[in-house]
């Protein structure tokens, strides 16, 4: 990224940073779905569906939210050069909170089996 175009200039995103960020969000959404599937499997194997279903639903919901947000972000980031940097602190915090709940639930599922 040497000698970058100034923000707002045409071609500021020649490295497709906004597209790569969109894809990173989508990969994260897929990872959340994969963990949701593992939690459901653990719930079935250990007969703890009462715990597994709400956890998996939360992760799946988070995953859909991440996917929808990534689409919104893409449009937003295309204009980032004009608007300046776009930081999404709350969305990051929600993602961390969902991950922590998934971690706590996964630990509980493993111990309660």
């Amino acid at each position, binding site marked *: 990224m040497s000698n970058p175009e100034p923000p707002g200039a045409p071609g500021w995103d020649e490295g497709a940073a906004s597209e790569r960020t969109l894809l990173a969000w989508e990969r994260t959404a897929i*990872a959340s779905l994969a963990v949701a599937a593992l939690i459901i499997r653990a719930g079935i194997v250990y007969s703890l569906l009462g715990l597994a279903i709400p956890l998996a639903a939360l992760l799946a919901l988070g995953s859909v939210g991440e996917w929808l947000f990534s689409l919104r972000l893409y449009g937003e980031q295309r204009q980032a050069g004009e608007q300046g*940097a776009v930081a999404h*602190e709350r969305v990051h915090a929600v993602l961390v909170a969902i991950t922590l709940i*998934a*971690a706590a639930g996964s630990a509980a599922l493993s*111990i309660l089996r």
Partner: protein
Amino acid sequence: MTTQTEPEHAERTKRGRLRAALRKLRPDLDVGKDPDPRFTLANERTFLAWARTGLALIGGGLVAAQVLRFGLGGAHLLVAIPAILLGGLIAIASYLQWQVNERAMRLGRPLTYSPLVRLLALGIAVLALISIVLVVISAIVR
């Protein structure tokens, strides 16, 4: 009669007070000037990559709990639980590091080294050590 300014009125309402309290909890990201958007996006992608690493560790821990059998009672939990905990810890640390980087970029300061790399390396080394010990003990016991 004195007229209330908008911020004063907001502070008086429940929602306004809650917002003010939340603002105090959040580190101030409204400092300095907007960095190059590409740097903000790169910081966001790094955060997401760490978040995925955390999710992968949680998933790995779940699989370990279901699949591993050492024949030593609940010994498989010695692999599963630390992996899940490490995943949660990485999620928190990645968020804090994202904030530190964002703030540094806004203030035009150099970025600090991430403690996450050491945390992950150490965590994986500990998991590997626990796994080796359990495999050897289970082989001896059988």
